[in-house]
C-alpha cells in the first residue's frame, strides 16, 4: 500500500488546466521531489494533497484512505508553505505548537516536543520572538518546525528553500536529508532547482505541462530522460540538442554534424530514417587540438573557466552553437580558433523529433 497515491487528479483554474490527469504514488518513508519549471502546477499539486484546494477530478489516497473530500484539518499532513505563512500575531513557539494544540496534547508534552524540534532546527533561542523579529532563515526553520513537530505521516514541503539566501540554502540542502530521514515521514518536496531535486529525492517526479513527464531515481532521470523536455530541465549547462536524421551505412547508423559523418552505436539501428534530436551532454563532448576518427570540425569561440570546470562555446561548420564542459586541468589555457570535437557515442541521447520521446537503444 502506497503511503500517498494520486489517481488521475485534474485541476483547472477558470479556463486553464493546471493539472491534467496526474497520477503519482509514494512509498512510506520515501522522499519524492516534485520538480518542474515555474507554472507547471507543482504547488497546486501539494495544495490538493493538503486539502487547501479541491481537485476537479480524480482521487487522493493517504495510507489507503480516500481523502479527496476530507477537510485539511482531518488529513493529518504537515505542510511548509513557500512563503512561510507564519502566524504574525503568535510567537515562534506558538507557531510551532499550533500543530499540536489541535490534537489536545498536555501543555508539558507540547513544550517538550516544540523544544526538541527547535533544538534540532537551531531555533531554540528565538522561540519567544514574534515572526517579524526573525531573520529569513529563522522564519523558514520555524515554518519547517511547524510542519515537522507533530510527526505527520505525510510531509509536504513547498519549495522551502526558495526564499532564503544562497548560503543558507546550501547549508539546508546538506541538513535536510538527514532531518527528513529521522522524521520517517513520506515526503513530497517541491522545488524548481534540479540540483536540489537530485540531492534530496529518492525519486524525482518531473511535472511538465500539467502532467507527470517522468518519475525515476535522480541518476536515471539524468542518464535516461524520458522526453526532450525532461532532458532540457536537468543539467547545467543545459544539454546540447542537434536535429539529425540517422542514415544506414555498412558500419552502422551514421549522423551528420557540420558536414562530418559520425557513427552512432548499432543499438540505434531502429532510428534510421527518423527525424531525431540528438542530445549531447556538455560533459560528454571532448574538444581536442588534433583531428581523430569520429571527430568533427568546430570553432572554439569562448572558454569560460568556472570553479571546477571550464565551459567551452563551440561553433560547428554549419553555424550551430554547442557547449562543452571539461574538468579544470593544469594545462595551458585553451586557444580560441579551429579545434576538433568528439562525443562519447555511448553517452548520446536520441529523441524522436515528432513527439519528443526518447528513443532507447535496442540491443540486437
Amino acid at each position: 500500500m502506497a503511503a500517498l497515491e494520486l489517481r488521475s487528479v485534474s485541476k483547472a483554474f477558470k479556463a486553464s488546466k493546471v493539472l491534467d490527469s496526474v497520477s503519482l504514488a509514494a512509498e512510506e518513508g520515501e522522499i519524492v521531489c516534485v520538480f518542474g519549471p515555474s507554472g507547471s502546477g507543482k504547488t497546486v499539486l501539494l495544495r490538493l494533497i493538503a486539502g487547501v484546494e479541491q481537485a476537479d477530478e480524480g482521487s487522493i489516497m493517504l495510507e489507503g484512505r480516500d481523502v479527496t473530500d476530507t477537510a485539511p484539518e482531518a488529513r493529518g499532513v504537515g505542510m511548509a508553505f513557500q512563503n512561510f505563512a507564519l502566524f504574525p500575531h503568535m510567537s515562534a513557539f506558538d507557531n510551532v505548537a499550533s500543530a499540536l494544540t489541535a490534537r489536545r496534547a498536555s501543555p508539558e508534552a507540547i513544550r517538550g516536543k516544540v523544544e526538541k524540534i527547535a533544538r534540532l532546527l537551531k531555533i531554540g533561542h528565538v522561540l519567544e520572538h514574534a515572526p517579524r523579529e526573525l531573520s529569513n532563515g529563522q522564519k523558514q526553520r520555524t515554518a519547517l518546525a511547524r510542519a515537522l513537530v507533530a510527526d505527520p505521516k505525510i510531509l509536504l514541503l513547498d519549495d522551502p528553500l526558495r526564499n532564503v539566501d544562497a548560503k543558507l540554502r546550501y547549508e539546508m540542502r546538506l541538513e535536510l536529508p538527514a532531518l527528513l530521514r529521522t522524521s520517517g515521514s513520506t515526503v513530497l518536496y517541491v522545488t524548481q532547482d534540479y540540483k536540489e531535486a537530485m540531492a534530496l529525492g529518492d525519486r524525482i517526479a518531473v511535472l511538465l505541462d500539467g502532467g507527470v513527464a517522468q518519475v525515476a531515481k535522480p541518476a536515471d532521470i539524468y542518464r535516461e530522460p524520458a522526453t526532450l523536455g525532461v532532458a532540457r530541465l536537468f543539467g547545467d549547462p543545459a544539454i546540447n540538442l542537434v536535429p539529425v536524421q540517422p542514415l544506414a551505412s555498412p558500419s552502422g547508423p551514421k549522423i551528420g554534424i557540420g558536414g562530418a559523418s559520425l557513427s552512432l552505436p548499432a543499438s540505434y539501428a531502429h532510428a534510421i530514417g527518423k527525424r531525431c534530436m540528438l542530445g549531447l551532454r556538455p560533459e560528454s563532448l571532448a574538444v581536442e587540438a588534433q583531428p581523430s576518427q569520429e571527430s568533427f570540425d568546430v570553432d572554439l569561440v569562448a572558454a569560460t573557466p568556472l570553479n571546477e570546470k571550464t565551459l567551452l562555446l563551440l561553433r560547428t561548420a554549419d553555424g550551430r552553437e554547442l557547449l562543452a564542459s571539461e574538468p579544470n586541468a593544469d594545462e595551458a589555457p585553451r586557444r580560441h580558433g579551429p579545434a576538433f570535437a568528439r562525443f562519447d557515442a555511448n553517452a548520446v541521447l536520441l529523441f524522436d523529433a515528432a513527439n519528443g520521446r526518447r528513443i532507447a537503444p535496442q540491443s540486437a
Partner: protein
Amino acid sequence: MESTSFIERILRGAALSLIVIFFLFPIFWILLMSFQTNEEILRIPPSLFFTPTLSNYAALITGKLATVSGTLDIAFMKNLWNSVLLSTASVAIALALGVPAAYAFARFKFRLGEDIAFTLLSFRFAPPLLVLLPLSLYFQALGLTDTYVGLIWVYQLIALPLILWIVRGYFEDISPDIEHAYRVAGHSWGRTFLRIAIPLARPGIAAAGLLAFIFCWNNFVFALILASADKQPVTVGALAFVTASGIQYGQIAAAIVLSVTPTLALALYAQRYLVEGLSLGAVKG
C-alpha cells in the same frame, strides 16, 4: 531627519500650530462658552475674561432649565444615556453581523456575492430623508416606532455597510496561506476564523467599529422622526435648548462638551489598535 535645518523645523512647527488652532479653536471656544452665562456669551465684543460658572452643567445634570419665563424640565442626561445605549448596541450588532459577512465576501466567491455586497453599500447612498417616510409607516405598522429595538435596527443602515466594507478589505489583505497553514495544522474552519482571521484584522475591525460608533452617535434625522422624547439621543435632545424665551447658548455648549466626551474617550482608547501594524513580517514580501 537629522538633515532638517533649524529654520525648517521652525516653519514646520508654525504650520502645524496654525492647523491645530484652525481646527481646535471652535472646540476651545465652546469649552469656554460652557462655563459662561448667556449674558456673558452674547456681550459685544466677546471677551476671553469672565467669571466661570458651573450653572450650565448643573442645569443639565439636574434636568432643571431656568429661563426668564420659568423653569423647564429637560431630559439631557436621559438623552445622553440613550445615545450611549443606541450607539453601543447598534455597533455591537453590526460587528456581530458584519465581521462574519465581511469574511465571507473576502474569502468566498459565491453567486450574487458582489451584488449583495454592493446593495449593502448602496444603503449609504440613499438620502435618509428619502427612506424615512416609508420607514416610519412600516414602523407604525410593526409597532417599532419609539422603541430602542426599532432605532437600533435603523442604525444598521449606517453601521453595517461601513463595517462590512472596511473589514472586508482587511480580511482580503491577510494571506490565505496563513489560514491554510492553521487548518493544515489541524484546526477547524471556525477556530481558524476566530484565532487567525479576527486577530489579524483587528486594527480594521477597531477602526470600522469606531467610525460606525461616531456615525451612529451623530445621527439626527432617524431618531428625530422615529422616536419620541424619552428614546431620543443627545443630537435630537439638544433641540430642547431652543426655548420660547430664547436660545440657551451656555447649556448648548455644555451639552456639546458632555456629548463629545464619550466618543473622544473611545477614539483615544481605540487609537492604539488603529495603528497596530500586525501583518508585518507575516509572509515573505
